[in-house]
């Protein structure tokens, strides 16, 4: 592979910027919450959305402004490099519960300074007590929803403990028109109102709130310009002085006015990005298709000789470091479900343009290069790969990035993404413009409103309830639907009916909770976000109230896909097909977590498993996930049809803690499988067979995306032939209709883990020409030899 032997010169700056991110400890940043609180104290009596806008403007005008050394792109949502900000109005009490533990909690700790703690106790808490969205949720959560939540059957607090997110703002419009252009649209709409008409007063103050938010953003940028000028004055290094004056010039221009250059476009984008995050702390504000909407600016710069490709790359890389600065603040439980301060700012390259043709351009490659250069955890980089339209050179660059082992990019099958968005009610013409959102969800910039991942359902619990007649194994209480004593299930269909009954019940309970959250979130208007949604202005309705062009029912996420399929397959195989054991025996073994039940455990482990291209198992996958999609789509919210998705982030681990032994052979309280991936170590026929099995899930119908993690042998990503075959594998995946994949390379670390826990790595193949064996079946000395050699060369596959 062609690797630059020498780093480009601009990487020196990038390395210094990166170092600052690395060496800074995430801290709670309460400046934002303090200003919000102060503003709310002053604006009593005004409509809520106006108060929100005024508070936002005050934040923009008063927040700490810092331009750090070496920066070319500037901006920060809070006052600290790596701050976690708190939306006091949404969920002040989350921090209240963790005041003494937040600095040291196991997942995503934040340092809380004593003076910040004091500010929280003296200013923030006293004002917000009893007024936050989270408290409304706790007061209104339906009883059955609460019971399932408290027993780890569903996770549904996510949207109550942080803001909107899960959206793609109208960046393109904002960059192109500038806030001044948007403000004139707002004013035009406002001037058409007649305040004697019912409803127009509400529209008027709503539009006013958009205007106030826009003023705030402009003021913020100007403050950065002033700061840059001040620093330039003091700067002795002429080179940096010049840079600072350039920054000042850019900040005077954007985002107030239309961007004229690539650099102005990037800065405009980033200012807005920090502002919508400042307005509502949340994950998944997705910049989306940057290679498309930034392309005109870059192209014009090149044509006018205003920029070189190296300079553009440096700017992109600077922006990439900025994306890695903010840290998502969330409560301890939510952090467990999605650990790693996950901002999920999903940037996307590739796909098709608005004529349905290849959209790949120079910027697509440069954005991939930025992630290769910077190698930080943000932005989340996604590829829309269109098998028919995108060139091999693009796919090759994608595979080269994969070979770095950073887990990026997330690879998406473009045609499936387009169909998913169409299935959300968007016509094809616009669906061409879809973008991956957050993890693997689907979105449409400046036009779509939804929570893509409102709640998670634990499919391990689903099987458990079907086998325990709705009883919770941990507590012994009956907390779910009574679907019958399994000893009375005469046929496989009887058993399957019970599983479906559980899914039916739990889906209903989730939908009820979702409706409550939708209602509470009417009190969560977001004028700064809404102002880049054209229809929010046109309809004079906030994003939160359904003002966007397309409003979609919330996402319901399934976790433990392989556990569900494998457990059903095992019961079918052992109890009903081969009759190797009775239902009584299996239930007995599950009760004891297989202790002393070796024979049954072995039968469970040896029953056919998902991920091996086995028709009996794959039939179950197709049937169950068609059923689940049908079941979820049966319901609508006031915004639209409910939407299914399969993306665990890290929720498969905490959910696993609530589920006892399963017929799949999984031991009690162990993690569930992630996404649509097979259970660890149970896929024994190589990557092709995994894709064939996974293709049996109707991906297109899980419109909030499906996530597949695959292990891959290092040769696939390190040798010339391997890279070519990886490209072929990805194309095959697209032909099969699988939506998404990302790869983990089997390295010596994983082999050591396999030596320790052979059960979890049963499928690990050792391959060289003419020879294959399963790693865990080899003796220790041979294993050691392979581990030794994997460091320099490799012959291992998932």
């Amino acid at each position: 592979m062609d690797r630059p032997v020498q780093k480009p010169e601009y990487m020196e700056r990038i390395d210094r910027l990166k170092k600052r991110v690395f060496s800074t400890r995430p801290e709670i940043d309460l400046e934002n919450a303090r200003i919000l609180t102060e503003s709310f104290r002053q604006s009593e009596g005004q409509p809520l959305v106006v108060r929100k806008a005024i508070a936002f403007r005050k934040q923009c005008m008063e927040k700490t402004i810092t331009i750090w050394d070496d920066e070319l792109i500037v901006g920060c949502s809070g006052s600290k490099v790596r701050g976690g900000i708190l939306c006091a109005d949404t969920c002040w009490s989350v921090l209240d519960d963790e005041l003494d533990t937040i600095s040291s909690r196991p997942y995503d700790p934040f340092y809380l300074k004593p003076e910040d703690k004091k500010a929280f106790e003296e200013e923030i808490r006293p004002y917000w007590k009893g007024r936050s969205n989270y408290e409304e949720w706790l007061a209104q959560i339906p009883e059955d929803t609460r019971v399932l939540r408290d027993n780890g059957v569903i996770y549904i607090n996510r949207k109550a403990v942080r803001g909107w997110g899960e959206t793609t703002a109208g960046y393109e419009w904002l960059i192109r028109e500038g806030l001044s252009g948007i403000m004139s649209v707002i004013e035009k709409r406002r001037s058409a109102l007649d305040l004697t008409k019912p409803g127009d007063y509400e529209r008027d103050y709503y539009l006013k709130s958009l205007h106030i938010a826009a003023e705030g953003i402009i003021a913020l940028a100007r403050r950065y310009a002033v700061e840059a000028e001040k620093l330039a004055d003091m700067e002795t290094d002429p080179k940096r002085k010049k840079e600072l004056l350039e920054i000042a010039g850019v900040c005077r221009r954007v985002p107030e006015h239309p961007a004229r250059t690539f650099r102005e476009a990037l800065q405009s984008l980033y200012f807005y990005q920090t502002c919508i995050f400042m307005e509502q702390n949340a994950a998944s504000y997705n910049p989306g298709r940057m290679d498309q909407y930034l392309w005109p600016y870059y192209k014009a710069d090149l044509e006018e000789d205003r920029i070189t490709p190296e300079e553009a790359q440096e700017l992109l890389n600077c922006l990439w470091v900025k994306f890695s600065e903010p840290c998502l603040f969330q409560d301890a439980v939510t952090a467990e479900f999605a650990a790693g301060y996950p901002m999920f700012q999903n940037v996307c390259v590739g796909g098709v343009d608005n004529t349905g043709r290849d959209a790949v351009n120079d910027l697509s490659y440069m954005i991939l290069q930025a992630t290769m250069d910077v190698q930080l955890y943000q932005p989340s980089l996604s590829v829309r790969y269109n098998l028919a339209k995108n060139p091999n050179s693009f796919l090759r660059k994608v595979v080269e990035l994969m070979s770095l082992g950073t887990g990026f990019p997330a690879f998406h099958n473009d045609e499936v993404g387009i169909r998913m968005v169409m299935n959300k009610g968007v016509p094809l013409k616009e669906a061409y413009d879809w973008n991956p959102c957050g993890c693997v969800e689907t979105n449409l910039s400046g036009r779509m409103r939804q929570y893509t991942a409102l709640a998670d359902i634990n499919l391990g619990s689903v099987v458990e309830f079907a086998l325990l007649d709705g009883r919770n194994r941990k507590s012994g209480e009956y907390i779910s639907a009574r679907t019958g004593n399994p000893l009375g299930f005469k046929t496989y269909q009887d058993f399957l009916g019970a599983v479906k009954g559980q899914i039916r019940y739990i889906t209903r309970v989730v939908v009820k909770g979702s409706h409550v959250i939708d209602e509470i979130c009417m009190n969560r208007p977001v004028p700064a976000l809404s102002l880049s949604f054209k229809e929010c202005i046109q309809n004079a309705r906030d994003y939160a109230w359904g003002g966007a062009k397309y409003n979609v029912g919330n996402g319901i996420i399934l976790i433990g896909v392989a556990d569900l399929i494998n457990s059903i397959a095992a019961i079918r195989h052992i109890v009903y097909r081969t009759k190797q054991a009775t239902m009584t025996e299996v239930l007995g073994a599950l009760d004891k977590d297989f202790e002393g039940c070796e024979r049954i455990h072995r039968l469970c482990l040896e029953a056919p498993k998902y991920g091996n291209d086995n028709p009996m198992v794959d039939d179950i996958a197709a049937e169950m996930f068609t059923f689940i999609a049908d079941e979820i789509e049966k319901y609508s919210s006031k915004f639209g049809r409910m939407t299914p998705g399969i993306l665990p982030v890290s929720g498969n681990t905490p959910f696993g803690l609530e589920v006892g032994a399963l017929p799949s052979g999984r031991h009690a309280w162990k993690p569930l499988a992630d996404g649509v991936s097979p259970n660890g170590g149970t896929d024994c026929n190589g990557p092709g067979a995994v894709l064939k099995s996974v293709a049996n899930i109707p991906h297109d119908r899980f419109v909030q995306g499906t996530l597949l993690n695959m292990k891959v042998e290092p040769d696939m990503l390190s040798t010339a032939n391997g890279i070519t075959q990886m490209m072929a594998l990805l194309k095959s995946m697209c032909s099969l209709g699988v939506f998404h994949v990302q790869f983990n390379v089997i390295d010596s670390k994983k082999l050591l883990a396999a030596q320790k826990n052979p059960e979890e790595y049963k499928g690990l193949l050792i391959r060289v020409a003419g020879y294959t064996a399963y790693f865990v079946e080899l003796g220790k000395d041979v294993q050691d030899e392979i581990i030794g050699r994997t460091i320099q060369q490799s012959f291992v596959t998932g």
Partner: protein
Amino acid sequence: MTKTRQLNGTVLRIERSSIHDGQGLRTVLFLKGCPLRCIWCSTPESQNPVPEKGYAKERCRECGLCVEACPAGALSLDGESGGLQINREKCRGCFACVDKCPSGALKRYGYSMSVEQAVAEVSRDEIFFFHSGGGVTISGGEPLSQARFTAAVLRECKRLGIHTAIETCLFAPWEDVKMALPWLDVLYADIKVMDGALHKKLTGADNTLILENLRRADASPYNIEIIARVPMIPGITDTGENLSETVRFLRQVKKLKDIELLPYHRLGTDTYKHLGREYSLKGLFPPTQERIAERRRFLAKLME
């Protein structure tokens, strides 16, 4: 057609999505049975033409279920060295013991499969073949030791538009070689060592037939590519002399596309233990990466 589809072969295992056995992503059919006994063989479980069993002592819990299950009384647990004693003479090959084993210590090598089943298995990956230019590779063991089965599988695959290859030692009657050629895209021919006497010593057979088969395959009217593979056994086959001789011979092969060196490895030594056999090359170490690269350069130079 129907007749050959019902023909059965003895398959050791099937490996999918391989990138090491020919172009593209391939499904590799490892057949059982080999006429040679190369001392470095990494897959000894492929040599015997009939299904057999392996026993991994380190996994055995000595539960005795297999001893009870054996109808021939071929198994016992009371030997001095501990673990299961297998009387391979008495064993009738019913594999009742393997079915009963709860720990995976007993393992079956080889099962019977019809041409139709084999082709169906290969066809499962046709989408990967389509995108990668891959296909089926029949390996072994020695695919030509089951020449009718091999030829029938190749023919059916060809008919379905699947790219075909075999990995063979070419130690087979010419009639058997000929049977496979019409349905073949690539012939991987093992040319282990050129000196006839040494060949006999290392593999148990003289190489005259092998070299003659290669010449005749080369002269055949079929549009096949030949790729020669030389196992790189340190100090034995990787000497300057042997490689020079090999290249000198292969220069006459018109269909020759490439010569590949396959570095010696010891990954199969466990299998010898499991089969109750001795591995004769115990003191031999695999070549280093540097040595492999150096030999590859040396070979490339010879081929210029």
